[in-house]
């Protein structure tokens, strides 16, 4: 019932359709393959019909399904209609695109309001909602760059980037291997591990805590751009110099977080360990490190993205002829913007997977923490 009342998104979409009809045609007269009247009617019909039908549906799911089909069908027709006619789109094209987007918005809003009982459906929805969201960023990007004929060098459409990724898989793989599997992974592991170990040492040895931490804060403020070329001089052009930059970048977040986390266990818990005559290491392993875990994972997550940035930027300062940063800096010089975007896409994907893996391990390890189990302390 809740979805049967008209929503402003759908109403606005209908208004946009009406304006679009009044300002036809969709494409300028110089278009080489103008859209047929049939296609135009189909787009408007899809948007209008699915919009109106969504009011009539009694279940949220049915309403969302109708909106989903209408919005994406219309978007598909618009994008396929513009192919061959790049840069000739007129106002109705963009109005209809906006209308389709509003339907998708309404679709996501309806889906977000659904409270499914079954766990599978809930998981499915949790993945579907951001997927629709992300898809529309790509759809609008594609439709606008092609419809308005945005110069390729400024912003290539996602389809061109995808095609470039498909065509250059071996190069991209080699770059990923060089940058991520060598520099990032090595630097990340060594940087995080050494940050952790130094934090334990600083906890054990008071003079380290007093002396090292302020200096640590200063070093962490060092600009990465300044450090990277020096690392190249010290460690050579190969991946080792990039790993060194990553180590410097990841060391301090881990150090600072672990030191903070080690003080996180409560007084009562520490008194308790004292009443058991527990020694330093027993207290560390049985109380303080488990209590530090949320802080450590925080640092691991921050570092997962920092490491990638560090390695890519470091490759700008001298590298063998492979690597993501190298590819970005050379291909931009050759105006191969699609290759740059392809690398960016791959980096974003790799960074998300990296972050996601760390976050999954965190959920499994700190299941007891109120922020994970969603309960009270």
């Amino acid at each position, binding site marked *: 019932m809740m979805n049967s009342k008209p929503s402003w998104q759908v109403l606005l979409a209908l208004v946009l359709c009406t304006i679009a009809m009044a300002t036809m045609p969709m494409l300028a007269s110089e278009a080489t393959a103008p859209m047929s009247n049939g296609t135009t009617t189909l787009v408007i019909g899809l948007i209008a019909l699915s919009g109106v039908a969504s009011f009539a549906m009694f279940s949220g799911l049915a309403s969302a399904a109708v909106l989903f089909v209408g919005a994406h069908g219309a978007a598909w027709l618009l994008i396929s209609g513009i192919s061959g006619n790049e840069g000739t789109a007129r106002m109705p094209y963009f109005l209809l695109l906006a209308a389709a987007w509003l339907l998708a918005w309404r679709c996501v809003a309806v889906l977000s309001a659904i409270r499914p009982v079954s766990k599978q459906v809930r998981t499915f929805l949790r993945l579907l909602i951001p997927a629709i969201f992300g898809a529309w960023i790509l759809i609008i990007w594609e439709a606008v760059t092609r419809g308005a004929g945005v110069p390729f060098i400024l912003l290539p459409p996602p389809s061109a980037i995808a095609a470039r990724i498909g065509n250059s898989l071996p190069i991209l793989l080699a770059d990923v291997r060089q940058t991520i599997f060598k520099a990032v992974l090595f630097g990340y592991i060594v940087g995080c591990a050494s940050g952790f170990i130094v934090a334990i040492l600083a906890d054990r040895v008071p003079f380290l805590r007093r002396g090292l931490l302020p200096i640590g804060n200063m070093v962490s403020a060092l600009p990465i751009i300044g450090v990277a070329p020096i690392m190249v001089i010290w460690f050579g052009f190969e991946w080792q110099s990039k790993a060194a930059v990553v180590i410097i970048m990841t060391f301090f977040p881990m150090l600072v977080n672990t030191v903070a986390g080690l003080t996180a266990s409560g007084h*009562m*818990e520490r*008194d*308790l360990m004292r009443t*058991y*005559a527990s020694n330093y290491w027993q207290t560390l392993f*049985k109380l303080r490190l488990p209590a530090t875990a949320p802080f450590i994972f925080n640092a691991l997550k921050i570092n997962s993205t920092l490491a990638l940035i560090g390695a890519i930027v470091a490759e700008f300062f001298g590298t063998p002829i492979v690597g993501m940063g190298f590819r970005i800096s050379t291909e931009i010089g050759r105006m191969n913007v699609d290759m740059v975007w392809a690398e960016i896409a791959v980096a974003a994907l790799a960074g998300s997977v990296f972050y996601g893996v760390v976050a999954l391990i965190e959920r499994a390890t700190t299941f*007891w*923490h109120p922020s994970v189990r969603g309960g009270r302390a």
Partner: protein
Amino acid sequence: MLMTVNQATATSVGSAVVEARKLGLTFQTNDGPVRALSDVNLTINKGEFVSFIGPSGCGKTTFLRVIADLEQPTEGTISINGMTPEQARQARAYGYVFQAAALFPWRTIESNVGLPLEIIGLSKAEQQERIKRTMDLVNLTGFEKKYPWQLSGGMQQRASIARALAFDADLLLMDEPFGALDEIVRDHLNEQLLRLWRQTNKTICFVTHSIPEAVYLSTRIVVMSPRPGRVTDVIESTLPTERPLDIRESPEFLAIAARVRDGLRAGHSYED
């Protein structure tokens, strides 16, 4: 009043578990020194159930912490089973129950109860045996695999008592263990604690600020008063060992409670 204190300290020195002589503790704070304890003379004998009662700041918790070697006295002497508090702590002579359950949320109930046993370094089999026994003692059988946050407050506090009992020290120090629980749960736990005390024949030091709780549980009630923290009265309970909950309506019970209340008032504890 003073006479009672002296009488108490004079009795049966041989079986004394805790023995304090002219004990004093002064905290150095930013606002100058604070006398948390002053001239405390007290002997606690084996098998006694001693309650410490008084308003906040009277040093009852501090005294318990001194016994546990969590605070160091600045004057006088104290011995636990003839040892210094430090030695007694190293010998794991006591179990301590805090105001909150202080269970580790990343451990299941049974592994929380087993924590001191792990630290002492008992064998796995011995650990299992003792965990089972103490969980049974506090009626938590069936909740071994649960996590603390899946249990009610009363059950958590029972688990923390089980943890303090697990390594079988003869002395149990309890610092307002039921203070944060509602009255029904509290009555229930008080009953269980008495049963447990009779079963195990342990010496229990129990800090509270509830008069009925102190009178219901104790064989002896130590009344304390603040600024400086000191003992103002020691009351021997005349109640029988077997104590159903409704004993709290008996004239005998009320008489002891009245005396505790008088003792608290005499210490000017409700001024300002």
